[in-house]
């Protein structure tokens, strides 16, 4: 009985939709965060430069936003790539850049 509810039939669709919706604010946050850091913090922790990370997260956020056709439209691969790049920034780069500035802003 339950299995005939459409939600389950389209589970993959709803799941990817959910990921996509969560990814958009993450991408925008990563881009804005990168913009606000001092440039030499990136070099200080052996990462790509500030312009490079602003570019990566900026393009990532843009790809996430413009894939308005939904997560399984033709841009599907692109937004998944963008999400990966954004996650690398948030998980690896952001904590180190914040730490080297001791949370303080110059």
């Amino acid at each position, binding site marked *: 009985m339950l299995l005939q509810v459409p939600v389950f039939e389209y589970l993959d669709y709803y799941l990817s939709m959910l990921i996509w919706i969560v990814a958009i604010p993450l991408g925008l946050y990563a881009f804005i965060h990168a913009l606000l850091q*001092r*440039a*030499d*913090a*990136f*070099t*200080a*922790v*052996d990462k790509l*430069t500030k312009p490079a990370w602003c570019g990566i997260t900026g393009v990532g956020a843009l790809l996430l936003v413009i894939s308005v056709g939904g997560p399984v439209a033709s841009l599907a691969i692109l937004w998944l790539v963008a999400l990966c790049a954004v996650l690398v920034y948030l998980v690896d780069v952001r904590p180190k850049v914040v*730490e*080297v*500035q*001791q*949370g*303080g*802003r*110059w």
Partner: protein
Amino acid sequence: MIADLAPAAGTLRLAPALDRPDLLAEPVAAALAALPDDLAASCGVAEIDPDLADTAAFCEAYGSPPEASANCVVVAGSRSGEQRFAGCVVLATTRADVNTVVRRRLDVRKASFAPMDVAVELTGMAYGGITPFGLPASWPLLVDAAVLAARAVVVGSGIRASKLVVPGAVLGRLPGAEATEALGR
């Protein structure tokens, strides 16, 4: 002698720094006065708009090439509860390699930029005006080799309302100065 500084000065009108202690923060004026006379006499100072003290804005407004500006950052680390600091001077076109070069010199596990309020308090200089001249005597002062080789570099004066322009080699003669290869990347 300050005529030699023209390539870095852009449109600034330089005065001999020794004649204008009013344009220098107190520890900076003291450090300048403590230098051998011929070195101190080779340093120039110019008044600027304090809103244009940050390097990018300064270079743009006064036509001074960015490769003739040197930034001074204060790096902090701690070892067994003791806080250690160092001044680091690199050309404005490069960034200090805090994580390897400075960290190793300070012999600390983690090095980071000193928080602005701490740096301001310990140096007695203004935010945006921190300069290698007159840093606390106990700090090592790491100066990138490219800075030392420069004929003239713009550095802070301890206040936002002026800039010092000095021969790069003078920075290597400051107390605690250590020529450091590959500090800037």
